[in-house]
């Protein structure tokens, strides 16, 4: 799901880890992904795509347990705490902490150097798609 999705591979996402309920992805810094040319900081939009993607990964990690085939984002709320450091890679980790029959709830955070000092945090809800009965 990380390297095979065209947008994820265009952004150069690398899978760090996936386990039931949790996923982690690295987004390497690249010149063309900069949002503020004065500072060389990666664009907010890249963080948005990264957080959306890592949340989807955490949800998908529970597909066997939850018995669903695929999932789609319903809503995604992102708080930006601070800009990433200049020319820094960004890592994002997500936790799918609750699964109902139809909905998955996920929290995620993105950081550059220290997981305790986040760049951004996210809260998302995903709809679960099951095979037609």
């Amino acid at each position, binding site marked *: 799901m990380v390297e095979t999705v*065209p947008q994820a591979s265009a952004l150069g996402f690398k899978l760090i880890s996936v386990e039931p309920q949790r996923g982690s992805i690295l987004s390497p810094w690249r010149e063309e992904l900069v949002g503020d040319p004065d500072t060389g900081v990666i*664009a907010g*939009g890249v963080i*948005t795509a990264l957080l*959306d*993607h890592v949340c989807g990964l955490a949800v998908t990690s529970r597909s066997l347990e939850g018995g669903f085939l695929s999932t789609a984002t*319903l*809503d995604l709320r992102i708080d930006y705490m601070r800009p990433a450091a200049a020319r820094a890679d960004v890592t994002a980790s997500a936790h799918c902490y609750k699964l109902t029959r139809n909905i998955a709830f996920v929290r995620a955070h993105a950081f550059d150097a220290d997981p305790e000092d986040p760049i951004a945090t996210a809260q998302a809800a995903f709809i679960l798609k099951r095979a037609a009965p």
Partner: protein
Amino acid sequence: MSQAAAQRLEEFLGRVPYVRFLGMRAELAGDEMTAILPFAPHLIGNVMLPALHGGVIGAFMEMTALAQLSVIAPSAKVHKTIDITIEYLRPGKAMTMYARADVRKVGRQVANVHVEAWQEARDKPAAALRGHFLLSGT
């Protein structure tokens, strides 16, 4: 005013590398801006459907808000996103997406912006965004 607005918009679009990565452009009619995201294979998030990546749609709407702000709240620096809430209403099809930003308030420090994105019909939105942006000084 409108020529200066067009110039500020072009400056913003040309200056931000990530705007070029997305392949996004924008058109102005007076002070009303329409952002345009032509379809490209690298924007796909689901190969089976195929559908645009949700993160791309979110990022496109966020950049639409920032582009609109660059027109009405000019600054030498890029404004910063404080928070955004994205609502996904329909899958993004493998075709051009459009978005318009509605700047609800420009305060002394913070602007509140709503964005709506659509594809085939304006009254069938694909996604919506609400956000707060920290205004950089001029």
